[in-house]
C-alpha cells in the first residue's frame, strides 16, 4: 500500500495502519446497511473480511445497495460478489472469505473475527449473532433501520455495540423477549419493509466509526457499550435514554463462563 493512500487518516495513530490491516471483520448481511459498511471498511484499509449473505441483487435493492448496478439485478448477481468487487477494487491485497448463506449455516469462519457487524432484519437474528459473539469473544456492532407508520412515516434506527464482558443488547434496553415474541407472531405478515439509502448510510457510518475507534483506540474514550438512536425525520443520532443512568458492573445475561464450543450434557 502506498504511503499516500492512507495519509489523510494518520491522525488515527502511528500504528493505526497496521492495526487496521491485521484486524478481521465480519459482516453478516450485505444489503442496505452492510454494503455501506463493507465499502467504508475497504476505503479505510481493512483487509481481512468474513462476509455472509445468501441473496442476489433484485430490482428492489437498487434504491440502496451500494455498488449494485442495474445489470446486477438483471444478472441476479450475488450480494457477496458486489461486496467482494468493492473490497478488491480498493484493496487488491485483501482477503475476503465470502459465504452465500446465513452465518448460522457456516459459523466457524465468523469466529476468526475480532469485530462482527450485524446487518440483519430480525430481532431474533440479532440475538443469535450476539450470543455467538459473546461465546467466541468478539465485539458485536448492530445496525438497523425501520419506518414506522403508514401515512407520514417516521424513520428510526439504532447502532448498538455489545462487547465481551460489557452490557449486552438486553442490558441497554434494545432487545427483550417481548420484541422477539411479537416478531415471531408477525412472521410472514409484515410484507416488504420500507428501506431507503440515506438512513442506512448514517447508521453504517456511525457503526464504522465505532469499529475504527475499537481497532485503533484513537479517541482514548472508554467504550464499554454504545446504544445510539437515530431519528431520521429530525436527522439526529443521540444516545438512547435507556442507557443514560445505566449502572451495570456485570452483564446478568451472559456469564463469562459461557464461552467456547457448547458442551453436550448427558441427561
Amino acid at each position, binding site marked *: 500500500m502506498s504511503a499516500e493512500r492512507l495519509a489523510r487518516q494518520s491522525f488515527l495513530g502511528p500504528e493505526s495502519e497496521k492495526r487496521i490491516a491485521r484486524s478481521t471483520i465480519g459482516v453478516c448481511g450485505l444489503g442496505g446497511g452492510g454494503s455501506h459498511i463493507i465499502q467504508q471498511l475497504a476505503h479505510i484499509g481493512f483487509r481481512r473480511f468474513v462476509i455472509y449473505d445468501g441473496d442476489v441483487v433484485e430490482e428492489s435493492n437498487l434504491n440502496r445497495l451500494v455498488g449494485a448496478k442495474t445489470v446486477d439485478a438483471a444478472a441476479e448477481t450475488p450480494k457477496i460478489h458486489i461486496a467482494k468487487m468493492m473490497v478488491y477494487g480498493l484493496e487488491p491485497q485483501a482477503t475476503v472469505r465470502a459465504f452465500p448463506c446465513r452465518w448460522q449455516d457456516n459459523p*466457524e469462519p465468523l469466529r476468526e473475527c475480532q469485530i462482527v457487524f450485524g446487518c440483519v432484519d430480525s430481532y431474533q437474528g440479532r440475538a443469535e449473532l450476539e450470543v455467538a459473539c459473546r461465546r467466541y469473544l*468478539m465485539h458485536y456492532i448492530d445496525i438497523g433501520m425501520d419506518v414506522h407508520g403508514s401515512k407520514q412515516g417516521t424513520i428510526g434506527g439504532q447502532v448498538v455495540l455489545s462487547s465481551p464482558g460489557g452490557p449486552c443488547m438486553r442490558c441497554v434496553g434494545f432487545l427483550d423477549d417481548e420484541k422477539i415474541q411479537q416478531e415471531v407472531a408477525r412472521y410472514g405478515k409484515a410484507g416488504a419493509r420500507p428501506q431507503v439509502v440515506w438512513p442506512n448510510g448514517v447508521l453504517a457510518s456511525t457503526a464504522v466509526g465505532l469499529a475504527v475507534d475499537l*481497532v485503533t483506540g484513537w479517541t482514548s474514550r472508554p467504550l464499554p457499550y454504545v446504544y445510539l438512536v437515530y431519528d431520521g425525520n429530525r436527522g439526529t443520532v443521540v444516545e438512547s435514554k435507556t442507557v443514560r443512568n445505566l449502572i451495570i458492573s456485570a452483564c446478568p445475561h451472559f456469564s463469562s463462563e459461557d464461552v467456547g464450543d457448547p458442551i453436550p450434557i448427558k441427561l
Partner: protein
Amino acid sequence: MKIEIRIGAVFYEQILEDLSRCHPFAAERVGFAFGRIGSLVDRGALVLLTGYHAIPDAQYIADPSVGARIGSEAITEAMQAAYHGRPTRQGVFHVHLHVHRGPTGMSETDRCEIPKLLPGFRSVGRQAAHGILILSLNHGAGWVWLPDEPEVVRAHSVNVIGKPVEIFESEDRK
C-alpha cells in the same frame, strides 16, 4: 491449522496487574489461566481464556537461579483445576510476564522448565487445550497443546478483545 488465544480486555488487565506485583523474594510472578476451545475451520481452534488463578506468595520457592519457581502445592492446585475442568473441557495455561515492550517468547529457562508441566495437565484433562502464555508489557505469545494433537504448537496470535483490539501475531517476532 490456525490457533489463536483470545482474552477479554478486563481479564487481560487483571492478569497484567497480578503479574506486575512485586513478590517478597521471587523476581517475577506466575499464574494459571483457564481456557476453553472454540473450533475453527480446518481443525483450527480458538482458545478462549475464562479465568485466572493468582499463585499465593507462600507457594513460591526461593531459587535465585530462576525468575520464579513455584512449589508442588501450586502445581497440585493447577492439576486439580484441569481435573475439575473436564466437564467443560477447560484447560490450564501457565502464564508469566516478561517485563519489556514488544514481541516476546520463551527464554532458555522457560524452554527447559515450563513445557514439563503440560503432560501433567493433559493426563487429567485430555479433552481440553493446555498451554503456555507469555506476556510482555504490550505483546504476547502462546503455545497450545490441543486434544488429539501429538505436540504443542505455537499460537498464530494472542488477541485481546478490548479497546483498542490487540492482535499479537507470532510473525512479529521474526
